[in-house]
């Protein structure tokens, strides 16, 4: 007591002047600043990425349509273009009249009738309105007149969601790729989920802890780190060359992605199983359960939310995968949605890859729009995984 009153330094505030303490506080502030700037850089990258994609892609959800009168006559029965008024033949998309001969063939009653409808304009004209693409003077004058007359309108592009790929950008859509993705993911799930969960259950609940199982464990963990393109090569060698699965088919793609998803499911399932506290198992054993009954009745139900979360995340990763699918030929031009697992198919990321390598500027917005759709689905999947985990998270 007397000591302190003598040397007069305040006991709690004196350190402000101590150089060592000041250095310490400075270091702390500096470190704080580093961390914040790291976060800001990351945020800036994300914001740039999203604004670029959305800025380029949102226009793809709208397109310009021209009002035409389709004339079903003998000439257009042979060549669809003749159904159009000659004045509009260089404005309306060729794709709009391409199917007329087939339509008449299927329904001869159409012959001799006319139909007034809206069809997409040519991709270059759409790009002229959206991005000021240069057109010939006469054409530019014509489309501006049609726009002023209300014979060209800007409408929601439902074709983007209902049509398959096309060599005419104004007709291209993601439908066939989306269907292909569903087939592929379905097969991935059917293949990887049961095998993955059962392997994890065996390793975690049944296997003795010895050199062999440890080796298996290490190798499964390594498998999760193998580059995806190598799984593509494995799929090519195993499924297509050895088992003779059709090339480019959803079956080949699904099985290949299943190989890639397998370690992810095994690892997350093991983590979920390990999170079930041992007293639950002991309690069940003490009631006279066999090991399988313990797993089936107690451990699996308790760990199911964790297993499903891991599976969804694994599937989301598989859904965004392109490299292994390129190897097994799923990068093909698929205008029609597949109707079976043996047919050639493509998937969303592969479709984006195809569009990204097209030279026409109209495909740029298609690429960005495809990325937006893919991201929306992936974010939804990941949100579902988070919600599932939140909802069923158990506290013991």
């Amino acid at each position: 007591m007397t000591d302190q009153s003598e040397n007069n330094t305040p006991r709690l505030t004196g350190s402000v002047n101590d150089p060592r303490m000041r250095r310490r506080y400075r270091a702390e502030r500096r470190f704080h600043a580093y961390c914040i700037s790291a976060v800001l850089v990351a945020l800036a990258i994300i914001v740039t990425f999203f604004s670029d994609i959305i800025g380029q892609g949102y226009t793809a959800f709208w397109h310009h349509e021209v009002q035409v009168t389709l004339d079903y006559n003998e000439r257009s029965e042979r060549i669809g273009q003749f159904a159009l008024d000659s004045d509009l033949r260089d404005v309306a998309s060729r794709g709009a009249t391409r199917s007329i001969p087939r339509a008449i063939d299927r329904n001869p009653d159409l012959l001799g009738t006319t139909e007034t409808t809206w069809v997409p304009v040519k991709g270059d004209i759409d790009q002229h309105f959206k991005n000021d693409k240069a057109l010939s003077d006469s054409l530019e004058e014509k489309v501006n007149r049609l726009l002023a007359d209300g014979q060209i309108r800007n409408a929601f592009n439902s074709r983007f969601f209902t049509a398959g790929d096309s060599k005419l950008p104004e007709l291209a859509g993601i439908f066939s790729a989306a269907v292909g993705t569903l087939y592929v993911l379905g097969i991935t799930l059917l293949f990887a989920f049961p095998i993955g969960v059962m392997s994890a259950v065996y390793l975690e609940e049944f296997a003795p802890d010895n050199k062999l199982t440890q080796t298996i464990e290490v190798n499964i963990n390594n498998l999760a780190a193998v580059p995806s393109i190598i799984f593509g090569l494995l799929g090519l060698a195993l499924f297509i060359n050895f088992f003779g699965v059709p090339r480019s088919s959803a079956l080949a793609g699904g099985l290949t992605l299943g190989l890639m998803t397998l370690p992810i499911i095994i690892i997350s399932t093991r983590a979920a199983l390990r999170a079930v506290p041992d007293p639950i198992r002991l309690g069940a054993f003490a009631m006279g359960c066999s090991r399988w009954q313990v797993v089936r009745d107690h451990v699996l139900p308790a760990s199911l939310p964790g297993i499903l979360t891991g599976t969804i995340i694994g599937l989301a990763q598989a859904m965004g995968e392109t490299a292994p699918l390129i190897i097994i030929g799923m990068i093909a031009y698929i205008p029609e949605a597949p109707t079976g697992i043996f047919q050639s198919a493509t998937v969303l990321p592969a479709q984006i890859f195809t569009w990204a390598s097209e030279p026409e500027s109209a495909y740029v917005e298609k690429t960005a729009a495809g990325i937006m759709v893919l991201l929306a689905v992936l974010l939804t999947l990941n949100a579902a995984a988070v919600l599932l985990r939140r909802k069923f998270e158990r506290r013991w």
Partner: protein
Amino acid sequence: MYSDAATQTTATTESETTMQADNEPEMSRQNHAPEPDVKVRAENVRLWYGQTQALHNVNLDIHARKVTALIGPSGCGKSSFLRCINRMNDLIPSVHIEGRITLEDEDIYDPSVDVVQLRSHVGMVFQKPNPFPKSIYENIAYAPRLHGTVNSRRDLDELVENSLKRAGLWREVADRLHTPGTELSGGQQQRLCIARAIAVNPEVILMDEPASALDPLATATIEELIDELKDRYTIVIVTHNLQQAARVANYTAFFHMGEIIEFNDTDTLFTNPREQKTEDYITGRYG
């Protein structure tokens, strides 16, 4: 303070012993069993965890429809011994057991013994309440359904009710049988675990420090429950709480370094121990 309780227990013990002897004359047929009411007998039980020996020649007779307490300092082997009786040690791969443990003259380590059957005769309650993450009803109905001892839904309802009543939990949970068992308080969860154990109608109930995770009030409830249950079941309880052993147990075995130093009726062991080590332990000189 606990000598009172101990005297009381001894009094009930005597009356029960005579009652039992009347009720079960067929027990005397077992001519090689010196005492007629031995339920579980351990002979020269030795247990190793890998290279480490945890039990050295344990010999113990556990009497039917009595409470036997196993006491001793941490790591003395009392829990290891308890887990030998329903072969829970089988789950640990490194464990190796020698010697003989019999449940009414049947060697429970005989290769022909079905562990599932053994465990339906020897139930267990753990230190930390571990109800299954299912409803209260399902917690109790699970094992009877598993062992196929109940056929109709009505019998099952009845069994659940009776088990809960016997565990003294019925009044508290009767109106919420289908809420999760994990939402009960700690003491209620432990009684649920006891109800779960008695639902398969075991002969022996093993309790591994059943009250050590509970507050004093819940502990008192569990102790009363043990006292009631011993009319029907043979109870073996491991406890760190000497007063608890003195209050609930008819017999007490003192374990030290993997050996039974002393086994006697609780009253004698606590008031007049034969061995110096026992006296040192119960008077708190080490432990």
